[in-house]
């Protein structure tokens, strides 16, 4: 028993010596050339820390996660995105789209109803559908303008109206942007719920594209309630809308679920998607008003001309007319009891 214990003891002793020997070089490193302890031997310098992670964080007594971050050089990159990339991207995409549409108007012109108006109206959008559309549309315009002000206001407006007026206006715009966002969320949710069924891709969409999407006069592009172009706008609005809503929530409740890097990414996503969204919606507005005769009334009064419907949404029109006939027949049968 005794020998057994002494065996263990000597093993532990040998292990301890070995560990000490292994630690020797480390110890040596912590001593300066004169044998005095080198206090910086184990200090990791700033550039090494920044190689390991994009931020230098430590411990702090202030009860805030943000305050723990000593340094985040990425702030300069975000500055570059915000001041250079975003300005160029936004200006190019939005001005480019307006220029493209102006060119389209000059070259193709307004798309007329080929056979002229029939005078007969068909209901295209119910009042609730129009309400959902205009709720989304109005809030989008407000959000778009107040959002653009944050990025471009200081270049475009500030020199004209002066710093005081521009600041008061921008502060109001900031609150408007934050609160009107709720209306946009509701509007988009309604639109999606109402129209997702009619926007599911169908075989006829391929034909529509093959026939030139209604832009080639000699060809007829078949379509259901929504054509492939409208479907693209719908799905884009759904995707981009979801992206701006999620990133917007992160920005409106800062640092709740993300850290500084998360906030920067949220802002980048919000801004990039928003300028693309604005460009697409400018095109949507153009086609719905200037670009095509007979389109705007669908969202204004809800009714479109029969010939317009025949030209642009033939399959949908057939369905509607069939429904009307059915309703008329059943109306007749209930009015005139069976013999």
């Amino acid at each position, binding site marked *: 028993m005794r020998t057994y214990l002494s065996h263990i003891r000597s093993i532990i002793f040998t292990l301890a010596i070995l560990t000490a020997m292994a630690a020797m070089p480390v110890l040596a490193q912590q001593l*300066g050339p004169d044998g005095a302890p*080198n*206090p*910086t*031997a*184990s*200090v*990791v*310098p*700033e*550039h090494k*820390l920044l190689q390991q992670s994009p931020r*230098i*964080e*430590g*411990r*702090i*007594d*202030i009860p805030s996660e*943000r*305050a*723990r*971050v*000593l*340094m*985040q*050089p*990425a*702030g*300069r990159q*975000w*500055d570059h995105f*915000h*001041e250079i990339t975003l300005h160029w991207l936004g200006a190019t995409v939005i001005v480019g789209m307006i220029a493209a549409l102006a060119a389209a108007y000059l070259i193709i012109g307004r798309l007329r109803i080929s056979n002229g108006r029939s005078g007969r109206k068909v209901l295209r959008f119910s009042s609730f559908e129009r309400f959902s559309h205009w709720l989304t549309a109005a809030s989008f315009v407000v959000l778009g303008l107040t959002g653009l*002000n*944050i*990025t471009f*206001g*200081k270049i475009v407006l*500030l020199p004209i109206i002066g*710093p*005081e007026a*521009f*600041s008061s206006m*921008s*502060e109001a715009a*900031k*609150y408007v*942007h*934050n*609160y009107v966002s709720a209306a946009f969320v509701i509007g988009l949710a309604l639109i999606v719920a109402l129209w997702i069924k009619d926007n599911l891709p169908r075989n006829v969409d391929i034909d529509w594209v093959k026939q030139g999407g209604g832009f080639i006069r000699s060809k007829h592009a078949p379509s259901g309630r929504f054509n492939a172009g409208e479907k693209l706008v719908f799905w884009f609005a759904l995707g981009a809308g979801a992206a701006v809503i999620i990133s917007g929530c992160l920005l*409106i*409740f*800062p*640092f709740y679920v993300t850290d*500084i890097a998360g*906030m*920067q990414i949220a*802002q980048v996503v919000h801004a990039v998607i928003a300028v693309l969204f604005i460009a697409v919606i400018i095109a949507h507005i153009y086609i719905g008003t200037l670009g095509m005769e007979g389109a705007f009334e669908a969202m204004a009064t809800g009714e479109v001309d029969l010939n317009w419907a025949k030209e642009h949404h033939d399959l949908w029109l057939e369905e509607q007319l069939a429904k009307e006939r059915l309703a008329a027949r059943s109306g007749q049968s209930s009015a005139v009891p069976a013999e």
Partner: protein
Amino acid sequence: MARVKFLCDADRCIECNACVTACKNEHEVPWGINRRRVVTINDGKPGERSVSMACMHCTDAPCAAVCPVSCFYTTADGVVLHSKDLCIGCGYCFYACPFGAPQYPKVGNFGSRGKMDKCTYCAGGPEDDSSPAEYAKYGANRLAEGKLPICAEMCSTKSLLAGDGAIIAEIYKERVMKRGYGSGAWGWTTAYHEGIAV
């Protein structure tokens, strides 16, 4: 004119937080706002260092660049100041600042951050020097009185240095030569696009 800077010699900082307290007292900084803070890296481990950090008054200040209402200005000494009258409390300067310097009096939900507050290098704001209006918004204007920032002035180990960038860099270099080590001027490369070569 001199280009003034801050330098924290991390090998001297003893994490006493006196700079933080002195700043709060000098400017009567409201509850919840810390213009200066001390962060400890590798706490409790070998190589632990504390760094006192506030606004570094950057060259090409990112906060000033991103501000949507352009409310920042740089003084002839290189101090980055802003106007609380123009600030809309958007919080963008905090996203851009590499040093977490901008502070806000409110939580921030639904854009309610309030006017941004940060270290002024004890140089006040756009109001008349040492006027009550300036004091209420930005705190004391020591620079106008010919004094340096209070945090560095009362630092007991002289870890935190403020003043002409060339002179404090020289002092730091000398220290490093004498004692034979130095973990560097923290944040200088990011703030001023240059470190201190020893």
